[in-house]
């Protein structure tokens, strides 16, 4: 197996008390190569944000490991953990909530530089901040330095969040629904800017989104990992996944998603689900978690045994008894 930059092994996180326990992330194993883009897609509540937070070092796993260049992140000493936290940055969904409203853009961006001694004096900090703003296309720089977050548009604010994430020169960025709150006409610009970071700075991305169209666009040369109720159900290269999904849940998602093309969207073949209800994390179905909704359900198999995520060739992984049967 090739060396991964980031790897999770049986990553698990539970919430709640002893009496009422919810497993938000259950045995997630995923490897991300250096320079790669992996999109984590799934519906709300499937555990994708929790997974992202554990990978970014913001939330301690209940079980399992996060490995960074082969080393267990959560088992390191304090200093190595601090280095890790610097090397891995997270960009949140809501730029209205993630930027301090009483700080200017300069203050927001120079604080991490000065705090981590990445700039020795104010003059150097100012130069670095100007360069960062240039990278995220907030130019002319002078127009932005003294502004407060509320004076910027949503798209500009999200660019500031990205600039802040790259102040510390991270090798890995977890982008959690980073373009979801931004209007359509601005979104592509943001995605292209993020793609440039990937190419020019060599940043590796875990891109978390519920939007399959965005995942396809951003990770066309990378991979998509599909999550359902806490577990990975399929991992494949993006073209494979959008054109030939193997897991019934991936198939259902791709068949259900409306497309911005009237003829295409009205002639899609449907996948008929057996039930519309998303299972509650408090009362998970036995066996495969998708079995109560799955059109390919086989009694005595799918409702009994939980299918593990297994390789099916071509670098693809699927967690499905039926897909494995072919």
């Amino acid at each position, binding site marked *: 197996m090739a060396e991964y930059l980031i790897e999770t092994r049986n990553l698990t996180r539970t919430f709640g008390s002893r009496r009422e326990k919810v497993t938000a992330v259950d045995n997630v194993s995923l490897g991300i190569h250096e320079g790669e883009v992996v999109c984590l897609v799934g*519906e*709300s509540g499937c555990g994708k944000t929790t997974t992202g937070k554990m990978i970014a070092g913001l939330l301690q796993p209940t079980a399992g490991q996060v490995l960074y260049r082969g080393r267990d992140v959560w088992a390191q000493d304090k200093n190595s953990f601090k280095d890790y936290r610097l090397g891995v940055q997270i960009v949140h969904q809501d730029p209205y909530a993630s930027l301090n409203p009483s700080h200017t853009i300069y203050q927001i961006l120079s604080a991490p530089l000065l705090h981590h001694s990445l700039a020795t004096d104010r003059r150097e900090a100012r130069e670095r901040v100007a360069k960062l703003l240039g990278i995220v296309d907030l130019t002319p720089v002078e127009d932005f330095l003294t502004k407060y977050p509320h004076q910027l*548009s949503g*798209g*500009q604010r999200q660019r500031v969040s990205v600039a802040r994430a790259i102040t510390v020169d991270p090798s890995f960025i977890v982008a959690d629904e980073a373009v979801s709150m931004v*209007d*359509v*006409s*601005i*979104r*592509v*610009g943001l*995605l*292209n800017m993020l793609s440039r970071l990937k190419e020019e700075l060599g940043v590796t991305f875990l891109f978390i989104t*519920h939007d*399959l*169209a*965005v995942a*396809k*666009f951003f990770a*066309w040369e990378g991979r998509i990992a599909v999550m359902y109720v806490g577990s990975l159900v399929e991992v494949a290269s993006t*073209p494979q996944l*959008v*054109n030939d999904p193997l897991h019934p849940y991936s198939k*259902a*998602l*791709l068949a*259900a*998603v*409306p*497309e*911005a*093309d*009237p*003829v*295409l*969207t*009205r002639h*899609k073949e449907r996948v008929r*689900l057996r039930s*519309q*209800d*998303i299972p509650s994390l408090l009362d998970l179905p036995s066996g495969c978690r998708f079995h109560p909704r799955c059109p390919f359900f086989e009694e005595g198999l799918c409702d009994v045994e939980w299918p593990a995520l297994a390789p099916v060739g071509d670098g693809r992984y699927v967690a499905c008894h039926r897909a494995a049967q072919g």
Partner: protein
Amino acid sequence: MKNDILNQSVSQKSPPLSVQDLWVEYKIERGMVKAVRGVNFDLRKGESLSLIGESGCGKTTLGLALIRLLVKAATIRQGQITYRRDGRTTDVLALKERDMRYFRWRECAMVFQSALNAFNPVLRIWDQIYDTIKAHDGMSRDQARESALRLLGYVQLDPERVIDAYPHELSGGMRQRVLLAMSLLLDPQILILDEPTTALDILTQRTILDLMKRLKAEMGFSMIFISHDLSIAAELADRVATMYAGGIVELGPVNDIFYRPAHPYTLGLIRAVPTVTGEFEDLVSIPGSPPDLIDLPSGCTFHPRCPYTTDRCRAEEPVLTLYEEDHAVACFHSDQVRREADVMWKQQDHHAAGDM
């Protein structure tokens, strides 16, 4: 008494709703927000018309103005909203508030974006439904319950379970279906839906989209739905109206809008949205950001972001005029935009053909 609102004058075969030169403004500290600016359109019988546009383009304000549910700070500066049913014509802006209440559910119902906020959290679904019916119709309690159960079943819910549930006991998709059922309770001729599926997951959204198609086909109401999401319009609309800075800049049949757009903003939106299945497409973003509705650009409101801008665009605002049959555009450079759109689709078809 409550039928008085409908018998003002008799007109012949005409659309259920006509909006003429509608202007809506909000007064805020900084000045006047011009949210809806000179909007004209007809809603045809049985059609589904989609209003698309980005946040702050005035689409929700327009929807609210149609049933006069605007906040206090908003005023309808001028314009005419004409409603027609069974040969009778109603001047919506002239209705008294009491008559307006009847109008809102019986003639024109609206379903809002946030399905959770639309409910009173301490009342069971049945109590909320009954409150609505009580306020609008003389139906007896038993009759009301019966038709509520029928409609809940119709939107694919378990009627007996849902009717006695509290809103928090239902999922987002279920609540959205309850709202749909409630909106149809008094058999309105028009249904306005504001971002009906925005907060929902993909599979739930699909259920609601399919349900809306079926309801419309079977019940025959006309539908206006407001969305920032082009794919919803591609899926549901018969006609699409693109809104920008408070005005309708393009209006036409769904296939014309997507495959033969003639306004640069519509083309820009289409080029900025990827499809999921199929080949990779290059996407182009629209430069700049939407204008401040307090301080609008001169001339065409889109000119600061438009690649076709000329001096005329900076000086003069184009009005929505018929460009070709049934397809209206507010742009001085529609021919150029159309050529560009043709090139775009040819390239994509080429992709697809080369791939077969």
